[in-house]
């Protein structure tokens, strides 16, 4: 039995808050790192409170970023460059690029139009400026066209944009607080539990850099993809160059197809599940097998039959889904 008095939840929160505040201001020294480790190991509740304290700072930063942008817009509208604007100059590069996005946050915002797709549905949405958006499965966007800006919010899933050129009216895509700007180009933005990624097929885009590198922006050119927000916390998400063929493979969903290239069956099953209610169920060994090829996104059964032949597996349709296992 631990002889120390057990801390109350409020006390735990207070200690966790102090650690998180300290880390927000400066890196911990080795002694402090050790002390924190020891404290976290004492009780799961300590770890939980510490995680929440870190999350609180993260969320507050996002909320404040959005107001900084709103302030810039207010200033611009009132037409006097002000002290206020100087104050928030840290956020200025992002803000300049994003000014219009802040309008969402305000009650006076012009009406946004929402478009969404269900699971397995792929939908083309023509926009009034001549651009088109392809919405992938289980996705949602909100579209707002202003005189100076075209603003799309990706609320869920993935969308591919073919942007009509209009240099006077930037095309902005915002997702999870990150902003991507295009003038005339074709690119996709995907939002998952792990972060937000962009992929450029033609032209170039400008996007906000990852938090740790400050609020700067960077360009991404054709045949490249990168993560612009990584919930897993990698400081510098890798920028990947892709061949045209690889790009086409990753954008195969535009033709209702899924393409695998030495992909594990586990990952393939997850990909099919994005488009289909019926899950592909398999044993751990089967999940590790690899597959290549081009398949219909909406037909997991055909995929199962195909890999059964290629990899010599057994396929069974059950109440739970399509079960794939080793033969014998």
């Amino acid at each position: 039995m631990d002889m120390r008095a057990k801390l109350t939840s409020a006390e735990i929160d207070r200690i966790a808050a102090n650690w998180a505040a300290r880390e927000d201001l400066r890196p911990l020294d080795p002694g402090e790192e050790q002390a924190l480790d020891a404290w976290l190991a004492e009780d799961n509740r300590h770890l939980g409170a510490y995680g929440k304290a870190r999350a609180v700072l993260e969320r507050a930063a996002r909320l404040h970023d959005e107001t900084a942008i709103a302030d810039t817009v207010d200033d611009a509208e009132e037409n006097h460059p002000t002290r206020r604007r100087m104050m928030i100059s840290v956020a200025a590069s992002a803000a300049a690029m994003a000014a219009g996005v802040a309008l969402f946050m305000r009650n006076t915002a012009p009406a946004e139009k929402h478009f969404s797709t269900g699971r397995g549905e792929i939908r083309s949405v023509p926009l009034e400026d001549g651009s088109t958006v392809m919405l992938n499965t289980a996705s949602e966007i909100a579209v707002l066209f202003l005189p100076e800006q075209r603003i799309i919010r990706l609320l869920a899933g993935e969308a591919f944009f073919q942007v009509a050129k209009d240099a006077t009216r930037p095309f902005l895509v915002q997702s999870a607080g990150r902003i991507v700007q295009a003038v005339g180009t074709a690119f996709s933005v995907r939002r998952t539990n792990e972060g937000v990624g962009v992929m450029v097929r033609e032209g170039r885009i400008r996007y906000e850099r990852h938090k740790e590198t400050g609020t700067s922006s960077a360009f991404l050119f054709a045949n490249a993809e990168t993560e612009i927000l990584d919930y897993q916390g990698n400081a510098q998400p890798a920028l990947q160059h892709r061949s045209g063929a690889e790009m086409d493979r990753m954008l195969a969903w535009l033709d209702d197809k899924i393409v695998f290239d030495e992909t594990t069956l586990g990952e393939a099953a997850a990909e099919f599940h994005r488009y289909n209610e019926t899950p592909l169920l398999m044993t751990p060994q089967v999940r590790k097998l690899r597959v290549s090829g081009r398949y219909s996104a909406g037909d997991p059964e055909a995929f199962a039959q195909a890999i059964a032949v290629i990899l010599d597996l057994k396929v069974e349709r059950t109440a739970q889904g399509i079960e794939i296992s080793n033969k014998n």
Partner: protein
Amino acid sequence: MKDDARRRAAWLADAILPHEPWVRRQLRRGNTLGYEIDDIVQEAYARLIMLDSVAHITNPRAYFLQVARSLILQYLRRARVVPIDLASDIDAIDEAANEPLPDRQVQGQQELDRLMNAISTLPPRCQEVYRLRKIEGLSQRQVAERLMISESNVEKHLGRGVERIMLLYSNDQRSHSNDPKMSPDGHACKAHKR
């Protein structure tokens, strides 16, 4: 362990934290069988941090509630108590998980207002530190110089701010976090000191 927490902080901020008040409401509505909601929620965060991946979680709010609920069951198993009315509570929870999510648009502005309100309840010094650091983005040294306080005091004041916002997401249900509380064995706690 702390690296897990650091890695997952952005996801917690985005997908979990805004739903904490809701999860607490659901827990309060059901029967927590005498277990403290504060304890359950803190431990639920820990479980979410310890997950290898969160890629499979499509409905984070419902998942958060699930985790909290399973913790109650786990505590029970440890205590070897078999409750009679738990099944009906679980049904109620499942129904609640299907409630529509709040409108994201409206949420942002309201949430910021609530946050600033919470900060405004702090002593003036704390408010200033919070504003200079989190809104104007000054460094620890700059904040200290501006307010003519020590750098370690900057840490303490910002800590109060973080604690206050944590309480905000606990929905202010926990009473008087600033009062010295009595620990279970009757000693007054010195929570300010590590």
